[in-house]
């Protein structure tokens, strides 16, 4: 069964909290690079954690279009649904 988008978003935000200070509020529109200061190296490490969490593979190529938390959640949802 495909995992619900909202569930993915919730779990993703939990992972993102590890990369930010506790007082930062993360919403779907939050920009990963400009607002959470997740650089390319951090993003790649985050992706590996996400891959394990959702038992999926996220091709690096697909990350080029990821700008916001919503973009990343949507990508995970898309890959998870396609399995």
């Amino acid at each position, binding site marked *: 069964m495909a995992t619900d988008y909202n569930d993915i978003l919730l779990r993703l935000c939990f992972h993102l909290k590890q990369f930010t200070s506790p007082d930062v509020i993360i919403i779907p529109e939050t920009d990963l690079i400009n607002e959470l200061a997740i650089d390319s*190296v951090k993003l790649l490490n985050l*992706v590996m954690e996400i*891959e394990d969490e959702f038992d999926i*593979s996220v*091709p690096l190529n697909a990350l080029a279009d990821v700008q916001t938390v919503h973009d990343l959640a949507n990508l995970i949802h898309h890959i998870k649904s396609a399995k």
Partner: protein
Amino acid sequence: MSLLDKLDAVAAARKALLPEGLEVFGTPIEEVYSATEARVGDRRILFLGTNNYLGLTFAPECLQAAHEALDKEGTGTTGSRMANGSYSGHRALEREFADFYHCHSGIVFTTGYQANLAMISGLAGAGDVVLIDGDSHASIYDGCRLSGAEIIRFRHNDVADMEKRLRRLGERSRSTLIVAEGIYSMLGDQAPLAEIVSIKNAYNSILLLDEAHSLGVLGKTGQGLVEETGLIDGVDFITGTFSKSLGSIGGYCVSNHPQLDQLRYISRPYIFTASPSPATIASARAALKLLRDGTELRRQLWQNSRQLYARLKALGYQLGPQPGPVIANILDSPQQALMLWKGLLDHGIYVNLILPPAAPEGKALVRCSVSAAHTSEQMDHVGDVFAELRKSIFQ
């Protein structure tokens, strides 16, 4: 942001990190005295970051071969092999590399960077998968991008993580190219080749091993990790470079798959670039002979490497996990790394400074590469300087 504004942002970021007037990247080398010594400004310095593992850049045999080729065939080929033809030296070196590895055939490329670009983009394409170690060299990442294949990373040297990702691919593991390195360029550790080969066989994938930093360093005759581990038959394609142990410039691939030759007709980094000049090919051929017979060079290289690694470890520096010719000092911040790098240069020792994002895990590295041409006394001296700097910088 305009195209030029982006470059201004790059300049501003570099300026914020690096002190004014310090040329950390592309340090001007005024004169080169030998494989291990040169002049920077008015200071005589010891090269300790040049990847000149066997110290062959001034080997008389290599110099003579290059001089003769220069006189006989000129300064350059002025074009690609597809358009301008393959010189006898190109063909001979390909045969010699294949013989050296006891393989069916070999291809020579203009640089080591292009060898990985050409092989990865020639083997994999849209719809295929390239599975790479997270600490892979930029040439591997760029080869993947050029290929159009899906790029998936596994955690550095973590074979369980690699297998997990192959398992997730299901049937697509059959159209997956796995890429690993004999010795990793930044931390100097070796790939767990036996486990990688075993998993690759179980999933019917193809394995490419880059021996750029292990050619001449590992194995009885210097083939690299494939010889050290006795696993050459488990590796489908071996790539490498002339610009480290062979002291020249160029790249190669050898394989027992007869299909390797077809790469000449589809691989853009092979087709659309000028072929290596006669002098670089000639010096590489002479160096390959010295490398193959270089048991004594390898013994000296490893003696120097173990000596320096043990000394730095004893001093309390955080190093890469394995002793070897690449000795990475792992620092917590770019500022610490910069102070250590500058301190070494002020003492006449030239090493590599690696700052994020090039350094793994967001750390900063001061990377040394040891040569067979270094002396034990030079290693002692380097150790003494590191000891002094540890007191002044970190305590």
